[in-house]
């Protein structure tokens, strides 16, 4: 049992922090980057590729680095700290994760190799209009004609869907179950729009659109899709942790510098006690994030699903508490788009609603309370 980073992991953190701070240490730069489509800085995407970050999770055979979940979590935390808009979580962790888990060796080498090199952006299209975090295909059906496949239906919203060179789409298979398909971005009808944290998402319409099955055609991949979604949730929790750490730090700094009534705000116990409560929630969330990340490394699919629910609930609760209090303790300045704290709260809400909020995770956990006596923390 060890909750500390080794030297290589610390070096990775410093390297990524250097890159992200240079790009977005000035919050105005982030604001500029998201001002128009694709909602991130293509140059920064290339720099992340150059550093090896975009290939981190993938095996060396697939053109990646073969790093583990702890390293991926470190990257997500650092991106969260500065609200970096580059779609690492959506494109590399989620869509790339689906390709890595389901693709044939040739598909992996091709798609992941180019993704790692920063040549392409992938997007996972798994949400149907009105859908709520289901691992089963809803609203898109796959049809087969000999060796060729087509997809028909709507996915909405799809994070980074309009920018994506290739879409990874889940769809109902003719013989039942859910398959995964790669669709050329340009082959779909796409309507791009801004998301409330500055990122972009799209409505993707497929109408007998040509698609290539990932891996063995016709195989049911529901369980694989669920696990990759759970891993994405856990990495999303890492990203949220980075956001919250930055918010707590910014709030404390603000309380020490902002003067009202002739004194700094930290003179008022009504405020410092609330800052203390933010810290408590941050530390509790941090513990579950580290734990869930380690479960990805060591656990079964079932363990990972459980960890995703647990960290999802804790981080969603903490996100609301810290995100709201950070705005309240700052006052009006944090309501503005030019200040990072309030935008951080917006990003936390994006992570929750995209990957599953407290209600979703609590419902799932509540279903299982009779399955165990005590919850065991250590393997």
């Amino acid at each position: 049992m060890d909750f500390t980073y080794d030297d290589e992991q610390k070096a990775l953190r410093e390297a990524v922090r250097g890159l992200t701070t240079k790009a977005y240490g000035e919050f105005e730069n982030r604001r500029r980057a998201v001002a128009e489509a694709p909602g991130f800085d293509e140059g920064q995407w290339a720099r992340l590729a150059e550093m090896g970050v975009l290939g981190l999770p993938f095996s060396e055979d697939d053109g990646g680095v073969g790093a583990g979940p702890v390293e991926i979590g470190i990257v997500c935390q650092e991106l969260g700290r500065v609200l970096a808009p580059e779609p690492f979580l959506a494109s590399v962790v989620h869509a790339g994760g689906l390709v890595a888990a389901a693709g044939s060796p040739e598909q992996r080498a091709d798609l992941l190799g180019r993704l790692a090199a920063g040549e392409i952006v992938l997007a996972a299209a798994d949400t149907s209009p009105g859908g709520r975090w289901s691992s089963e295909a809803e609203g898109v059906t796959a049809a087969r004609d000999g060796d060729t496949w087509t997809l028909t239906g709507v996915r909405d919203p799809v994070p980074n869907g309009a920018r994506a060179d290739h879409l990874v789409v889940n769809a109902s298979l003719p013989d039942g179950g859910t398959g995964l398909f790669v669709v050329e971005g340009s082959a779909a009808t796409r309507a791009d729009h801004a998301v409330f944290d500055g990122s972009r998402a799209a409505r993707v319409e497929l109408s007998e659109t040509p698609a290539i099955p990932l891996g063995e055609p016709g195989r049911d991949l529901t369980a694989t899709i669920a696990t990759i979604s759970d891993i994405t949730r856990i990495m999303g929790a890492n990203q949220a942790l980075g956001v919250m750490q930055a918010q707590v730090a910014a709030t404390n700094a603000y309380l020490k510098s902002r003067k009202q009534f002739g004194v700094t705000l930290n003179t008022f116990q009504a405020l410092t006690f609330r800052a203390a409560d933010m810290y408590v929630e941050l530390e509790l969330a941090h513990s579950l994030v580290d734990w869930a990340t380690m479960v990805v490394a060591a656990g079964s699919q079932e363990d990972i699903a459980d960890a995703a629910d647990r960290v999802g609930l804790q981080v969603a609760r903490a996100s609301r508490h810290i995100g709201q209090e950070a705005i309240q303790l700052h006052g009006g300045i944090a309501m503005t788009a030019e200040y990072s704290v309030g935008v951080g709260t917006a990003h936390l809400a994006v992570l929750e609603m995209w990957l599953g909020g407290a209600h979703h995770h609590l419902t799932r956990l509540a279903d299982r309370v009779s399955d165990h006596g005590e919850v065991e923390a250590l393997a």
Partner: protein
Amino acid sequence: MQLELSAEDAAFRDEMRTFFTTEFPQDIRDTVLAGRHLTREQIVASQQALNAAGLAVPHWPVEWGGKDWTTLQRHLWHEEMQRAGVPTPLAFNASMIGPVLAQFGSQEQKERFLPKTANLDIWWSQGFSEPDAGSDLASLRTTAVRDGDDWIVNGQKTWTTLGQYGDWIFTLVRTDPDVKKQAGISMLLIDMTLDGVEVRPIEMIDGGHEVNEVWFSDVRVPGDLLVGELNGGWTIAKFLLGNERVGVAPVGATKRALATLKENAGDLLDDPLTRARVAELENELLALELTALRVVAHSTDGAPHPASSVLKLKGTVLQQAVSELALDLAGPGALASGADDDSPVPGWARRSAPTYLNLRKASIYGGSNEIQRQIIARTILGL
């Protein structure tokens, strides 16, 4: 980062679990697991069973019966004990005065008191709080005045937990009234059988007798019972309170209480709202336990990790929340608190209200949760 315990630590945990569940007196565990009160004799027998196995005071210096364990091993020992329903060693002895004497006591004091303290041959009480000195402990007014080699003690202590069982009491007394309040305090050990010491019970909202007032009227205390330096008591108090905070988050016991409540709940657990409350509490307890492990992993020897305030704060809140859930599940049956075992209302439901009321103390003692917020804001956040 790694989730698994090392083979060595896993073996250690199994060893603890085996001892606590197979060799420790079963009747004491049964009492704890059923949520009933322990008698003085049971508490003494429990600690002596632990001490005989070398497990009562592992955090003390090796010379005085401690084990040279890692902080993680200590944590596992503590958690396994709570999990098995083994009462943790009497805090006044094992966590408070023992480490203080080992650190600050004279050689003579160590030899005289430490072995008997470990074995609970002496039951210590804590004489810190006074009617006008609670969170502001340094305002204490009990005085000790020199008379030859002796000290003459006058004043009143309060909230003395289980003082009715106490043989000796470690006190903070004012030995210099003319300096800054923190600088005029000393620690004095007082034999509670001396003339002039009087223990008066305080009746509490749960109907129990857990705490007392202790009055001192011209009590003559030999000079060699002053601990550490004259007027150095505040340093000792801070050392002691820091230790108190570390052990005060009863994660294992609260987890067990919640698991037991699920068993007792029966059909009530079919209610989705109840299930959600349980799930939420289980999750927060998991987060707390993992935080305790992180704190353990990062503490340097001796000095408590500043985040231990998080453990105290959240640990007591969750302990109280589980007791509230038990009360809610008991429903009208909770009113049978005074009924005997002939009652058709199960024991856990009859005890639910007194337990709920009793545990309100948890966010007050050991440095109230407001004091913990102050520590977090000042020490950790620099506010």
